[in-house]
């Protein structure tokens, strides 16, 4: 790659107002060289706006963007060492695939043979040699997507920008192409910012993920800690499936919901830490819930019944009603028998107050921690359906 130094992308305190909305409200983010960073967030949170500022199509109201140690905030798009893949691909219908890819090289007045070689090489990389002389109108969605990628890659940019590049593809192709993109990105060690609102996509290909909400970054971390340790109530609700209920800490577990249903949790420190009698937002992953047939233990207070179950093939998702107004979702193995009353316990949970993470419990070892420390592997015996870093 053309960059000589090891510095990647550095964004500091970027702000942008569009019309009457403050769309981006102070975003700071760094990406090391060769890193793939996802901007993940709900629709309208300012992902595209941020990406367009990085690409130079919008100028920020304040803040700065630097790449490879160089401030590029004021440069027009044609002078930035960035290349963008647009959501609608933005191929030029009057040019063949070859010409689409070669356009940027021609502007640089490279010799014909070099242009030829480089275009051929990149078309080979994205598997499109056969479509070289076709017009974009005669390509499938996936092929068009790859032309757009080739057009960006052929310039050997220092920074690759992708705006929901897979949203027009069907589910199967999406998984295929995202793996291809990741593979190429790693092979070329090209710093990449990838915008998506699909958490599955973000968790499976990123080195780091910036979860955005309302024009701000809520959390910026690697997929595993994002999934296991969401630092805010918003991220906990946005990334993956999570039970989030209000509750109190009591000896040996928690009481949840308006019914005050007692759910045991094996964490010795929990009671010490959270036992101030106050209310918490208690969050726990579906795979961290244990559901067992109650058997003879009918007198236990946390007895519940399975209200609904959805089979996902290799596992099932169940909704357990533990109280009149309280229900808990859980992922279970496919063979668990759930007729009759069940008892529920939680292996690992997170406590939030005022939207921020305050406590993270660790299962089995009984060793919890007020926010911080290493996560232990959870969800024993259950395959998580939900996107998790371990799928990579």
């Amino acid at each position, binding site marked *: 790659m053309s960059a000589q130094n090891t510095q990647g992308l550095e964004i500091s305190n970027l702000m942008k107002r569009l019309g009457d909305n403050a769309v981006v409200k102070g975003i700071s983010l760094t990406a090391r060289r060769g890193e793939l960073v996802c901007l993940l967030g709900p629709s309208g949170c300012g992902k595209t706006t941020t990406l367009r500022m990085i690409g*130079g199509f919008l100028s920020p109201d304040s803040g700065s963007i630097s790449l490879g140690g160089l401030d590029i905030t004021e440069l027009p798009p044609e002078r930035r060492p960035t290349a963008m893949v647009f959501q609608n691909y*933005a191929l030029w219908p*009057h040019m063949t695939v070859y010409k689409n890819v070669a356009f940027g090289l021609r*502007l640089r007045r490279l010799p014909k043979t070099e242009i030829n070689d480089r275009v051929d090489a990149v078309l080979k990389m994205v598997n499109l040699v056969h479509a070289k002389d076709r017009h974009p*109108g005669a390509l499938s969605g996936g092929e068009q997507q790859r032309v757009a990628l080739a057009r960006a890659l052929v310039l050997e940019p220092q920074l690759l920008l992708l705006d929901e590049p897979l949203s027009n593809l069907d589910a199967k192709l999406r998984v295929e192409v995202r793996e291809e993109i990741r593979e190429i990105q790693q092979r070329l060690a090209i710093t990449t910012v990838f915008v998506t609102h699909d958490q599955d996509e973000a968790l499976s290909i990123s080195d780091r993920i910036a979860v955005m909400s309302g024009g701000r970054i809520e959390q910026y971390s690697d997929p595993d800690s994002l999934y296991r340790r969401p630092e805010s109530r918003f991220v906990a609700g946005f990334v993956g499936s999570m039970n989030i209920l209000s509750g109190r800490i009591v000896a040996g577990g928690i009481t949840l919901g308006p019914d005050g249903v007692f759910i045991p949790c094996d964490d010795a420190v929990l009671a010490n830490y959270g036992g101030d009698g106050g209310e918490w937002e208690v969050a726990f992953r579906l795979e961290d819930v244990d559901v067992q047939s109650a058997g003879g233990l009918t007198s236990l207070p946390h007895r519940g019944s399975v209200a609904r179950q959805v089979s996902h093939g290799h596992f099932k998702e169940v909704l357990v009603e533990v109280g009149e107004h309280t229900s808990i979702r859980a992922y279970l193995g496919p063979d668990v028998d759930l007729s009759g009353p069940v008892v529920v316990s939680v292996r690992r949970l997170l406590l939030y107050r005022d939207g921020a993470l305050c406590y993270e419990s660790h299962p089995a070892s009984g060793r919890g921690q007020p926010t911080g420390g290493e996560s232990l592997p959870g969800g024993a015996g259950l395959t998580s359906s939900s996107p998790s870093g371990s799928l990579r």
Partner: protein
Amino acid sequence: MRFLRRLGQLLMVAPPILVIGVFVGFPIAISAIYTLGHLGGPNSAVSAIGLHQVSTKGLFTLKVYKDVFAERNFQASLVASVWVTVVSVAVVLVLSWAIALYAWRTRSRLGRALTALAVVPMFIPVVIASYSILQFFSYGGFVKTVASALGMPHFPTLGYSLQLVVIAEIWVSVPFGVLMISSGLGGIPPSAFEAARDVGASVVRATWKILVPMNLLPTVIVTCFTGISVLGSFTVPYLVGPTTPTLLGPEATETFQSFAEPQQAEVMAVALFGLSIIVAVPYIWATYRANRTSRAQAL
């Protein structure tokens, strides 16, 4: 069965074709043989009033054509027609593109207002517009008055000049140009332009290499239709232009009415028709190409 269906389809399109054939095709054919020296038959009425006619006993004669094309006045008018057409079309194209592009790029209120304003001439009858343009630029008109007030008494007046014809033709044609070009641009996603900037094209280059080709058909349509309408225009050159040289429309009319030379006038009409066909060629080519590529894309 099949034959009957075919016949039915043919009968359905027959009426319009018949109307065109009888009311347009037939008169054209008759005029054509009239210019080639056949004065009798359906042409006997017009040849009864015509002066300086040429007739032939053979298949045809080109003498009228030779005479007309040898005439100084006609030559001057032919040149004037081509000149006015080329200049008007060029200016209309530049203006329409500039306005449409400004509105498309900025998406501002000013851009939209300009586009709307550019369409206004379409709602003003050409006769009225021509008179006002003439008044505005002629001796004693607004321009001259302001110039004198500013101490320039010898400021040129454009009344009854070919330049004024060009100005008026532009006024008449710009609305169509802006409408076509801006609606064509409206169909181009901004990202197509941004993608070109992204790979290193300047604004000018991205416009020239991406927007113009992507908006080629509307541009060709504006070129051809404006060209044909200017070439064949009558009211504008008749009202604001010089007596001679003038455009072929008024020239032919005058030859017919004032000089009572219908045969010569029709030769001029044929010349006009020939020029118009030349102007129409790019349009036919572009629509053919657009059809072909859209069919290729549908596959």
